[in-house]
């Protein structure tokens, strides 16, 4: 797993809370829907590389979804890999 930093997730939460008021929860989102929000967020920041599904940034956010919502790894492994 190689997710984005937690502080980047805070940025995503902040952005969604401001720009997508209809979204109240992330844990119910499947990966595809989550990545749609992430893509909108990164594009709003001017980071166009998120449009490339083979980019590192795309993979990092996919890993982030796995960490938070599909996590079957140990916390120790997450601690070593994640921030």
């Amino acid at each position, binding site marked *: 797993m190689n997710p984005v930093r937690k*502080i980047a997730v*805070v*940025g995503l939460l902040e952005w969604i809370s*401001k*720009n997508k008021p209809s979204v109240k929860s992330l844990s119910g989102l499947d990966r595809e829907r989550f990545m749609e929000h992430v893509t909108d967020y990164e594009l*709003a920041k001017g980071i166009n590389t998120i449009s490339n599904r083979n980019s590192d940034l795309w993979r990092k956010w996919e890993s982030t979804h796995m960490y*938070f*919502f599909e996590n079957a790894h140990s916390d120790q492994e997450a601690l070593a890999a994640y921030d």
Partner: protein
Amino acid sequence: MKDALNPEATSFISQSELLALGIKVRKGTAPSDRGGDLLQRFIEVPNRLVIAYSSDDESLCNYITEHWSALDGMSGKWCDIYLSMLQMSGDEDVYSAMSDLRMLPGGEALRVNALPIALLWSAGAAACISLREFSTSKADLTKFFRHIFQFLSEINGGLTGGDEEALRSTLVSALPKVQPLSGYSFFVENIEMNDHKYIADRGGVVVGAGASAGNIIANYGSQLNSFDLPLLASQLKQLRGALKKNADDNDSTHDVAIGQIATAAKAAEAGERGEVFAALKNAGSWALGIAQTLGVSAATEAIKHAMNS
């Protein structure tokens, strides 16, 4: 995949992570006990705090590790503290995360030379408080955090721009004077939304004896987030080419301007908004004039904005 959902993963910091760092978690306050959803909790808790520090800030680093439980308890229902686990474990520090921190409300003002910083924000306002001039002894840090959280409990909701003066007064009266006291940086900005982008109306103050404008953390633009960085990068490259063609070899300010525009273009390509505007702030009137003549409107507006911030 729901079956594999880790209940702790719905919270921002897991109990296991905290325990692995030797941090005590009080009964009933473990992240997993709170349940809920990351976004749901983010929306429900009216204020958020990020403490940005490096391993050089040893006393603050130790304080947070040793007193996390107390901080978590103090912040109560009015504020959530978002910490970096890698930072707490010593594997990474704030320098690696500056670009992410700058995307948060008030975060565009973050500068390395103002660390450590407490970045506090709500849906309506943000305060960026540098602890640089404060004593960071255990007792003084306790005072600092107690007064911030007491303030938040008294306003009983999210920070607003109108709280600026009261929070300032609270901190000034609470914090011990250190020598030399050259002031500390502090601002609260009102945040409004316009076309899905932050528009911040900043009211800045510097407090403390001997304070000067030099202690203000630079704010590189209330509309900083509204610029299209790829477009800006393209126009800045175009501008750099024009500047090189028009430069006077005997005028060193032209060399400086070309360098600043090149730096800004590179930062824009990398998505580093704060660095873009830091460079453009020093681009100078000659570069601005060439940009206007060239008709690169995004670059022109960005330079104007940075120079006037």
